């Protein structure tokens, strides 16, 4: 056996070892998700991008003629206004869910893990029934002849039924009820692993609880906070059925605008371009978060 053969065998061996140590596990772990995303997400997305540059034919089919009109169309004030309204509502929803979800997740995470699992289960159970029926039930509860009004009237607190249905207040409650678990679950996963000794150290060093919270707890759970912001904000951008069912329905958000393009007006190219816009807004937001919150250091993305 000459030396070059040995080198060859050696290099083959290292290669195989390298494969066993690095490539095989990488393939096993990241392979399925890569395949799934490429095939079931990016492939359809390519189609959506493609039709966003086509035009609508007379009866609502796709005419294969290139145009950028669908994108320039969006710059009309009417559509910009819709986009702005949607961002506002999503921001508001996220803020409320976070303000209420954080202390709630904190409360659950401080319980023993068995109790915590049950408490989490309790928050999810209502979501295992139909969300539409839940929203309508909330409407029945707040209706002029609903339970709340009847009780308040019987107690003599009010003489005329309170107007709760079709107000902003009930929309906020509806949004909260629909989105809260999306905020609580990632927060829980993140707070649960918080090392209690850090908090004790902080308070032993004389820090007031509020200071400990802002200087220790929040930074350490930032990845969970970011995850819950993403999971609440992004779906909220397209969500329109809560304001539609509880708020009186006189609303146009990007979600029902896109729905109209695909179903009613059958202007698929314009609907596709609006969907691309939503994706771009999301990517921009993620970029913004990573820059501002310096999350790249935390390996969240």
């Amino acid at each position, binding site marked *: 056996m000459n030396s070059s053969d040995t080198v060859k065998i050696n290099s083959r061996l290292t290669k195989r070892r390298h494969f066993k140590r690095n490539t095989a596990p990488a393939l096993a772990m990241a392979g399925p998700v890569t395949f799934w995303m490429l095939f079931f997400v990016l492939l359809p997305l390519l189609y959506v991008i493609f039709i966003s540059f086509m035009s609508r034919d007379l009866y609502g089919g796709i005419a294969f003629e290139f145009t950028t009109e669908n994108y320039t169309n969006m710059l009309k004030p009417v559509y910009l206004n819709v986009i702005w309204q949607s961002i506002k509502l999503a921001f508001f929803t996220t803020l409320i869910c976070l303000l209420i979800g954080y202390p709630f997740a904190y409360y659950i995470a401080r319980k023993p893990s068995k109790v915590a699992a049950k408490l989490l289960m309790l928050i999810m159970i209502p979501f*295992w029934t139909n969300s539409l029926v839940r929203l309508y039930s909330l409407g029945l509860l707040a209706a002029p002849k609903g339970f709340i009004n009847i009780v308040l009237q019987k107690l003599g607190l009010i003489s005329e039924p309170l107007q709760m249905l079709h107000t902003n207040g009930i929309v906020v409650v509806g949004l909260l009820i629909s989105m809260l678990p999306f905020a609580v679950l990632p927060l829980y996963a993140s707070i649960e692993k918080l090392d209690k000794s850090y908090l004790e150290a902080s308070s032993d060093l004389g820090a007031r609880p509020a200071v400990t919270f802002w200087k220790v707890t929040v930074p350490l759970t930032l990845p969970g906070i970011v995850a819950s912001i993403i999971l609440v904000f992004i779906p909220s951008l397209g969500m329109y059925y809560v304001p539609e069912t509880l708020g009186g329905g006189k609303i146009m958000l990007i979600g029902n605008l896109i729905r109209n393009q695909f179903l009613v007006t059958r202007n698929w190219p314009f609907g596709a371009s609006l969907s691309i816009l939503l994706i771009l807004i999301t990517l921009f937001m993620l970029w913004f978060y990573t820059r501002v919150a310096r999350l790249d250091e935390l390996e969240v993305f």
Partner: protein
Amino acid sequence: MPKHKRERKKRIGQRIATGFALLIYLFIYAPIAVMIVFSFNDQETNYFWNGFTLRWYEKLFYDSSIVEYLWVSLIIAVSATILSVIIGTLGAVGLVRFEFKLKKLVNQSLYIPIVIPEIVLGISLLILFDFIKLPLGFIAIILAHVTFCVPFVIIIMRGRLAGLDLSVEEASMDLGANRMTTFFRITLPMLLPGIISGAFMSFTLSIDDVIISNFVAGPYSTTLPVKILSLVKTGLSPEVNALATIMILVMLFGILANSIVQAVLRKRASTVIKSYF
């Protein structure tokens, strides 16, 4: 005494926290309570309380297809959850641990199913399935659900993974355990809370989905939410409430039965062990 004071403060704080949590649960459960109460409402359409009746349950009892829809929904939700959790957990670890060419692309594409409107995802998946000649129905719905559940699992898992001390893994491998053992013995248990959160989320998303399911469904694959939404179109009948109530009861029953079975198994296991001594 400052210590006394601190103790009392702590106790008050805990009480406030418990009260707050109770309030949240009240908020979430109030509509459920109304939903259940109105499933007994003696009115063709639910407008206001009009008296007690069991006829809606009776009607559902004689409608054998309801059980079928419920099973279809459960099978789809559980299958989609299991697949999503496996793909998502492996994927989350893989995407943090390894460097590869498509990593950035995959990372960013994760947000697409979350942000893209359901109608667009539904239609584009329908076109994809039609293109690859996958028959619409069961399998198609599961594949579609996994597509929108995986990103949620991964994002939750990342919140868990970030900053988690993974040097234990290296220690395990230094001590001679191989990658597989290390993953199952060390990594997985550390990730478990994230996995549970992800599983809850996937199940919830899948069991409630209507729009995407509707696009990729075929004959014999009507899920309960699809049936409910179609029922809603001909009036918000208490029957819909009864259906939703049954749905939640079946879930609760499943959880309960499961914990009883396990309690029995555990008891038997402990007696078996005791009998050895």
